[in-house]
């Protein structure tokens, strides 16, 4: 049986209570998933609100991806809580000065919004299936019509209006949800590594690139699985989006780090020792060099050379995978990294990563994979690709 607590080895001077790293890999996964939600929603909004026609083939997939990941956002938190059965206290008696108290409201609001928007987007398909199918599936679709079978041009125009306004509302919703996650960390003055005004923005932009990157991978993968040709225009559109947002994300993260170093407040020596030691590979090499700068250069090269065809697909997909890795590491380096630097400013700890257990690596990987499995099921019920004609 797993012991109840795993203590973190340390060097230098740390407070005795700090030797238990309280926020585990589950809390790394939490902002990662939330970020994917926000990022995927951004793609959907780029089409629905800003009229990026190139992104049309992935607009509905983006919406479904966002929804599937949103279902799982509360799970890592519930796994983490000492008393998960009291989780609803967060909604019932919120403490308004706490950034975390906003979570329940943001999340509930956003799930409702996503469900509504998805319903409107898939309504013609639902009506069609409700009329066509019999048996259990037929009943399922008939229930989902909510009694409305009107798919006249006028009704669809109303639907489109709803989708448009929901998408507009969803932009601050999704970005608020993720910006708040950044604020949870950035607003804590106890940790120099977290305490930054830029943190919400850093989280937000890395969220966007992770969501767009995920859609690239999902789009290419689903096209391969379905043996349908990949719309290169759409793929390029996604690549441009990632490219633009990586620039901003990199700039913000660079600025944040520069601020810490330049201001050189108390404890900066320990931070420098940390980033040049244990964090050298996960931070500078993997997160920045391989995960962000390499895809940025690669994408720039492909844009410059006008690469197309298979080379473009391979290049963009691999870049997207690297971006996904980079953003995961960014979450890791913030959440775990922040706790590995002692509040004393005089010592460093080492997070004892567990493989098993509810807050172990396996559970966390399962949490990242689970929304994809649900997405696979949902795309069977609501095919985001066949539905394009209805738009």
């Amino acid at each position, binding site marked *: 049986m797993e012991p*109840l*607590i795993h*203590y973190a080895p340390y060097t230098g*001077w*740390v*407070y*005795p*209570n*700090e*030797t*238990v790293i*309280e*926020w585990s890999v589950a809390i790394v996964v939490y902002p990662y998933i939330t970020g994917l939600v926000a990022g995927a929603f951004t793609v959907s909004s780029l089409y629905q609100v800003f009229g990026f026609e190139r992104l049309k083939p992935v607009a509905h997939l983006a919406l479904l991806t966002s929804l599937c990941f949103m279902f799982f956002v509360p799970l890592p*938190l519930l796994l*983490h*809580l*000492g*008393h*998960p059965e*009291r*989780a609803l*206290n*967060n909604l019932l*008696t*919120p*403490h308004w*000065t*706490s*950034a*975390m*108290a906003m*979570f329940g409201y943001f999340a509930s609001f956003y799930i409702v919004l996503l469900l509504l928007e998805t319903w409107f987007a898939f309504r013609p398909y639902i009506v069609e299936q409700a009329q066509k199918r019999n048996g259990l599936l037929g009943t399922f679709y008939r229930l989902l019509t909510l009694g409305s079978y009107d798919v006249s041009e006028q009704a669809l125009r109303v639907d489109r209006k709803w989708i448009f306004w929901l998408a507009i509302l969803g932009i601050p919703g999704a970005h608020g949800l993720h910006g708040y996650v950044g604020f*949870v960390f950035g607003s*804590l*003055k*106890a*940790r120099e590594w977290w305490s930054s005004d830029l943190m919400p923005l850093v989280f937000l932009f890395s969220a966007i690139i992770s969501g767009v990157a995920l859609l690239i991978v999902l789009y290419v993968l689903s096209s391969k699985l379905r043996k349908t040709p990949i719309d290169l225009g759409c793929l390029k559109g996604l690549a441009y989006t990632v490219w633009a947002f990586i620039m901003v994300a990199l700039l913000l993260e660079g600025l944040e780090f520069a601020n810490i170093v330049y201001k050189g407040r*108390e404890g900066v020596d320990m931070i420098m020792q940390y980033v040049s030691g244990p964090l050298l590979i996960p931070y500078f090499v993997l997160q920045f060099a391989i995960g962000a700068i390499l895809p940025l250069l690669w994408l720039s090269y492909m844009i410059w050379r006008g690469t197309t065809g298979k080379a473009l697909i391979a290049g963009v997909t691999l870049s997207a995978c690297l971006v996904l890795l980079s953003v995961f590491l960014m979450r890791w380096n913030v959440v775990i990294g922040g*706790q590995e630097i002692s*509040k*004393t*400013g*005089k010592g460093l700890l080492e997070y004892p990563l567990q493989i098993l257990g509810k807050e172990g690596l396996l559970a966390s990987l399962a949490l990242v994979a689970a929304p994809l499995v649900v997405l696979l099921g949902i795309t069977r019920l609501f095919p985001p690709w066949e539905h394009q004609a209805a738009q």
Partner: protein
Amino acid sequence: MKKREAIGALRARRLFLRRIGGAAAVASAAAAAGTAGLVGKAAAKSGAAAAEKSFPTPDYDWTKRQWAFGVDATKCIGCLRCVEACKVENEVPLTAHHFRTWVERYVYLEGENRPRVDSHADPVNIAASGSEREYRFANRYQDAKVEKAFFVPKLCNQCEHPPCVQVCPVGATYKAKDGVVLIDHEYCIGCRYCVQACPYGARFFNEEKGVTEKCTWCYHRITKGLQPACVEACPVGARVFGDRNDKQSPISLFIRNNRVQALKPETGNEPNVYYIGIDKAVS
């Protein structure tokens, strides 16, 4: 007209009675507090008050007190009786990773500009004591030339602007009117945001109970007129506790007669633990 007058008279009487009632309540509360103080002093040496079920004490009025804590680091001898007393009194998990109070040792060796810091929870000190449940400072600097050395007891600072209270998503931790920051263990969801927010490392998570814990200055004792367990156990008077509303209390005198300082004042938390005899390396 007569009816109106009668109603007016009735109202006046009701108001008068209400006032009298309020005054009586205040008087009885004051009397009760006085008795509690006397009883408290008598009972001060009678073991753990935690075992008693009256928590919080029914007749305790938290608007009357303004508790504060003082630490005289020049007196501390690092005997760690305070740590032991706290662990027993508050049923703190008996590991080297869960403390409501602890003691730090700062040692400046000759030729070194920065102190070497450790606490009794350090593996070397645990090895010397032989157990996590025995608290000791190993004589690890006996062969070195020590220039300056001192001990610093640490505990929750019961800050005036507690960041832990600010971040609690459900309001399970709150600041009592008498200045102590408390945690409602029946309400805490165990998210540990408060553990992250405390810059002093004063909070820890009790894995078995699934809630956060920290020093409450032995709230179950002080509300009965007793001293916190650590204060009572300290053989040299390095820990001082009392009510700031009482100008002659030990803590009022301590703050008045010394140049006191607080830990990490730059955080804006305004701690209520006042230190003397520490230097700039202490954070």
